[in-house]
């Protein structure tokens, strides 16, 4: 718990005082990573220093029982003619590392910094990147409750940033970060809640995106049109830089493959018995193939499901959706009619009809149908995506952009749309490119390429579970 009471901080400037904070009070919740944003000279670094106890406000107080690191990213804490080891030894002495443990402690810092034998060289021979690495490694050797980070970009290259993130994640259960950055993507990577420092005020938002939405409109004054500005902000708030590299999947995929082989083998045996409804079983199996991206197999099993039970709406819908992927449009219309015969308002049926309209190039009717869908399902991300696509194809770029942003917002809120979100970003990228916003477009495309929610391990563990269940239902 960090509580700020009536804090005022000012600097004397020519002709008066410049107030960085004017009697601000705030309270930071426990256990959150905090991102601090604000304009240059807005007091971000000063705030970090005050939190760290190495600067003081003019009046007011900060109450906390937490320990804070020194602000990382500063080079000042090292003596230039002492070696990296001697410098680290001095700080370890400061923080009371036991003399018997100090050697192991320093060796560990050396390893984490990754600068090898430069560790034994005087500090003035270091590049700024190396200095940053040593500073980071040194602080990581202690368990502070909060690590104060002043512009992580100053701490090193992209590879080191990844390493730094990993190190911080390893500590996440005990330690949190408070971080200052101009780069919203960096904030997205590390922080949960946002603090905006602006015009002598300090505001805490319980959600980083909210903070970004509140902060950016005031900063994007170079965009004159207020509506346009709002859009810029919303695009920024999507966190296009929030990119992760997927982990190792080999183990999971192997077991998925062997389960699948076992099920297929059992199905090929004469007279397999299946617990429950056959049609449901086939539809489940088909959806596994769909998740794995094997579309021909998926339609094959869905067809079989429909043959077993011609009222199986789920498979009908899936088939009409799949027709696009497998380029097999036969019976599409009749299938949709079949769905509509069962339930005119069935969402899957309407979506299938929508796909047909798109294929026929009838975007005006598609828009009409979509508006009907929105009446019942105003937050349907996929529908919004279609809406944006139709508008885009009709050349109504501004409306398309808004619709696309809605699609992404709704899509990110519901886990069931997670797999589709990268596709939404891809379309966003196309719309942005068409409206001439190339750099943001590239960011959006990159985001689609490496979407963090598109976590392959999660996808495969999902499939794995379904397959296990199917495997149990079938016996020869």
């Amino acid at each position: 718990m960090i509580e700020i009471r009536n804090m005022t901080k000012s600097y004397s400037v020519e002709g008066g005082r410049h107030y960085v904070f004017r009697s601000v009070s705030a309270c930071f919740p426990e256990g959150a990573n905090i991102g601090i944003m604000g304009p240059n000279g807005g007091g971000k670094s000063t705030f970090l220093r005050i939190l760290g106890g190495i600067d003081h406000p003019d009046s007011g107080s900060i109450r906390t029982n937490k320990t804070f690191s020194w602000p990382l990213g500063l080079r000042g804490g090292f003596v230039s003619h002492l070696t990296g080891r001697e410098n680290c030894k001095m700080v370890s002495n400061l923080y009371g590392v036991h003399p018997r443990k100090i050697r192991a402690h320093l060796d560990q810092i050396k390893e984490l910094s990754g600068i090898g034998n430069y560790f034994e060289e005087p500090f003035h021979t270091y590049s700024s990147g190396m200095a940053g690495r040593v500073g980071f490694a040194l602080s990581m050797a202690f368990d502070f409750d909060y690590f104060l980070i002043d512009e992580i970009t100053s701490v090193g290259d992209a590879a080191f940033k990844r390493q730094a993130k990993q190190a911080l994640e390893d500590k996440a259960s005990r330690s949190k970060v408070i971080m200052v950055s101009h780069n919203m993507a960096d904030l997205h990577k590390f922080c949960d809640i946002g603090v905006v420092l602006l015009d002598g005020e300090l505001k805490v938002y319980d959600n980083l995106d909210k903070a970004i939405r509140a902060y950016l409109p005031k900063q994007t004054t170079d965009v004159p049109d207020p509506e346009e500005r709002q859009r810029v902000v919303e695009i920024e708030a999507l966190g296009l830089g929030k990119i992760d590299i997927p982990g190792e999947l080999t183990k999971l995929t192997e077991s998925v493959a062997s389960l699948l082989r076992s099920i297929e083998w059992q199905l090929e045996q004469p007279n397999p018995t299946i617990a429950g409804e056959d049609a449901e079983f086939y539809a489940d199996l088909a959806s596994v193939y769909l998740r794995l991206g094997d579309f021909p197999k998926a339609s094959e099993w869905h067809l079989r499901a429909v043959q077993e039970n011609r009222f199986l709406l789920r498979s009908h819908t899936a088939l009409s959706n799949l027709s696009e992927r497998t380029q097999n449009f036969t019976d599409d219309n009749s299938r949709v009619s079949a769905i509509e015969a069962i339930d005119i308002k069935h969402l899957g049926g309407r979506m299938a009809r929508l796909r047909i309209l798109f294929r026929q190039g009838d975007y005006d009717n598609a828009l009409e149908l979509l508006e009907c869908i929105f009446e019942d399902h105003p937050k349907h991300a996929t529908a919004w995506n279609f809406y944006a696509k139709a508008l885009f194809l009709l050349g109504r770029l501004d409306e398309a952009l808004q619709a696309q942003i809605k699609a992404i917002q709704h899509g990110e809120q519901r886990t069931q749309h997670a797999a589709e979100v990268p596709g939404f970003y891809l379309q966003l990228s196309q719309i942005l490119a068409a409206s001439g916003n190339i750099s943001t477009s590239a960011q959006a495309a990159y985001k689609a390429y490496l979407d963090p929610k598109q976590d392959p391990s999660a996808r495969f563990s999902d499939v794995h579970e379904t397959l296990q269940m199917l495997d149990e239902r079938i016996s020869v």
Partner: protein
Amino acid sequence: MPSTDQTTNVMRIQRQTPWQIQKAVVFAVLIRELRTRFGRYRLGYLWAILEPISLIVILSAVRLLFGENEIAGLPFPVFFASGITAYLLFNHITTSSLYAVESNQGLFNYQRVKPFDVFFARALLELLISTSTAAIILPALYCLGFHFTINNTLLLIAVVACLFSFSFGIGLIVGIVGPLWRESQKIIPVLIRPFFFISGIFFAVGDVPENLQGLALVNPLLQATELLREALFLNYQSHEGSLFVLFCWALFTLFLGLGFYRIMGKSLITSGKIR
């Protein structure tokens, strides 16, 4: 898997008692000061002892021209050595305090280090240097044939303690005023320099005209050199110094210095205060 047990060695920031923290911090700063002071030059440690020796040699040479070889019952190199040690302790503590905050600015990035620690560590380092140079020079002079007998060890300890407190008190004041008012960093050394001439480095109080002795003894440094010689040497013939006066001075300046620090110390590490 090398990464898994990286956390085992991580140092938990323990809740240490203030005394433990104070000890650790002063020790760390002291070691750092030692390395910055002497680590840079090969003759670093030698220089600490060369400064008093060169002063002794020069002063002795001047005295030789006058043809005397004893002052107040002491062989003059021994006489000078004691005076110079006392003066240099005072001089070094005050002048090094003057820039203590600025040259250690980087250290204040660590929350545990406060300006007080830096002042105290610097003063302590000077005390260590002074006592160790004296511990080398005086026996060396004895071996060279300038004989003396130690008089009163307890008094010696008391005098050194008082001189240290006095110098540290002054050091705190100038160390705080210096960074807050930059001009003073030029003025204060000029103010300190005359003490070289009035603090009994090359004269004993007994040699001062009687009507001026009272005035001269207002100077606490003169008291210190007098008392130091009285404590060190059995056959020193001047006994004008008063431990009580020196003690009062020490108490007064220490109180003043600590009070000053209490009021102004925080502004040394508050941004927007130092120009």
